[in-house]
């Protein structure tokens, strides 16, 4: 346990050293939050709010909270492991007497907590300066959101771990990585809340793992899952996707390990 904590702590510290990049990221995430907010306000003004059941404040909050979730869930991709596979450095990682998946998970959580705090919170605060945002009003609401964010980060980890490992077979998996990111931004709710989709498309989005990374934690933040059972179902679906994708990653890892042995290192 101590080891994983240390790995996570070091990863947190490593990411906290990129100060200019972090400031630039906050700037960009906030700016896109504003642009998306004004577009959604125009949608609400044109009668879109009535059609979806989300009022203007909810739509605006969605714009900022999804910008905040971007970095921590690795929504735009994370390819360090794939790079190590491509260069062969991954062999060093595999020699370590620790589990590779757990190692990357610990490192991911360290990075994720830094990026969520440093890149995620400022855009929402800066959004609140200009707009009225819908915020959790109860302690349970805040706790549920924190759990949901953690689960979103875990789903993001499980997804990217699997995608990164495909580099063992594809060598260059950047195309696949980009494809996953594309599908994620659309179906995860990063471009539009999926409640604005035509209902058949919303069903598709809700049946995919990507909603668990962005759309669901945003809905939890805004209290859209009312009542204990609805909330439990939302968090449960996130947990389910983490376990399912984590298991796929596990299987890919053991297949990759066998492949490395066959090739003789």
């Amino acid at each position: 346990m101590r080891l994983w904590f240390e790995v996570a702590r070091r990863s947190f510290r490593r990411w906290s050293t990129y100060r200019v990049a972090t400031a630039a990221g906050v700037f960009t995430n906030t700016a896109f939050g504003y642009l998306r907010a004004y577009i959604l306000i125009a949608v609400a003004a044109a009668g879109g709010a009535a059609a979806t059941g989300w009022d203007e404040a909810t739509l605006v909050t969605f714009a900022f909270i999804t910008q905040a979730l971007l970095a921590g869930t690795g929504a735009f991709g994370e390819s360090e492991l794939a790079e190590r596979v491509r260069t062969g450095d991954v062999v060093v990682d595999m020699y370590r007497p620790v589990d590779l998946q757990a190692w990357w998970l610990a490192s991911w959580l360290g990075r994720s907590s830094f990026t969520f705090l440093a890149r995620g919170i400022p855009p929402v605060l800066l959004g609140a300066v200009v707009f009225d945002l819908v915020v959790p009003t109860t302690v349970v609401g805040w706790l549920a959101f924190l759990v949901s964010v953690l689960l979103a980060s875990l789903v993001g980890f499980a997804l990217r771990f699997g995608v990164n490992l495909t580099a063992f077979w594809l060598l260059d998996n950047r195309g696949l990585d980009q494809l996953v990111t594309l599908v994620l931004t659309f179906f995860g709710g990063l471009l539009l809340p999926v409640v604005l989709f035509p209902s058949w498309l919303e069903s598709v989005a809700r049946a995919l793992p990507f909603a668990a990374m962005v759309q669901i934690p945003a809905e939890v933040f805004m209290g859209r899952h009312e009542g204990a059972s609805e909330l439990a179902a939302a968090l449960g679906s996130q947990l389910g996707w983490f376990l399912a994708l984590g298991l796929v990653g596990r299987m890919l890892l053991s297949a990759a390990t066998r492949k490395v042995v066959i090739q003789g290192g």
Partner: protein
Amino acid sequence: MGELRVLARTYRRLVGAKIRSDWQYRLSFAFFLLSQTVVTALDLVVILVLFDVVPSLGGWDLAQVAVLYGLTTLAFGLGDLFVSQVETSADHIRAGTFDQFLLRPLPTLLQISAREFALRRVGRSIPAATTLVVALAAADIDWTLDRVLLVPVTIASGTAIFGAVWVVTASISFWAVGAREVANTFTYGGSFAHQYPLHIFARWVRTLLGWVLPMAFIAYVPAVHLLDAHNPLDLPRWLAATPPLVAVAAVLVARAVWSAGIRAYQSTGS
């Protein structure tokens, strides 16, 4: 003029060599081309989904917003193809390889844009051009001669303005290495925002993204006249004729900023 011809020939040769080398990896090329097309088309999908819920945005109907999307995205796509490579100067500065551009007797901008030229970026222009043609046919336009001329002039000026914005924002790296994302806000963010009628944004956003970086001239200003569209900002019609002038001014400013950046540049000294 003779010198300019030499530069143009050099540029063509360098770009030709880069295209031939990329062409060796055809599958990879095809895949990246496709993904550029899909990324760009996704913005259009978003607009289509929105218009499934609402009849108009800021008083503009689907065909009118689609014209905005087409003009903005085409200018962005062409600017991306010919100029966006300058943003890789950030990587060269960080890696210390920028010095090699300074040593050669060719303009730095020309070298970078030729060296990092990527034909696959033409993928961005495919959905834009297609949408523009369809939207211009679908929109209710009173085709006078000035409106016919306005379309190609707008595309050319818009490309130059986007290119200038790219050069200016990429120059940030000369002063602040690692701040590349700030540049993305104005290039990608600018193109994203200008797919929608400018008046739906708050005044400070309009001022910054529309008039300070003169991106309103890329699509919104000419489109108001072209489409005879709802015009709550009360822009005068003659403004539609000014994009070429704005483009020239923007290019001159970009050149000055880039030169200032080169002068401020300090090598990593490795």
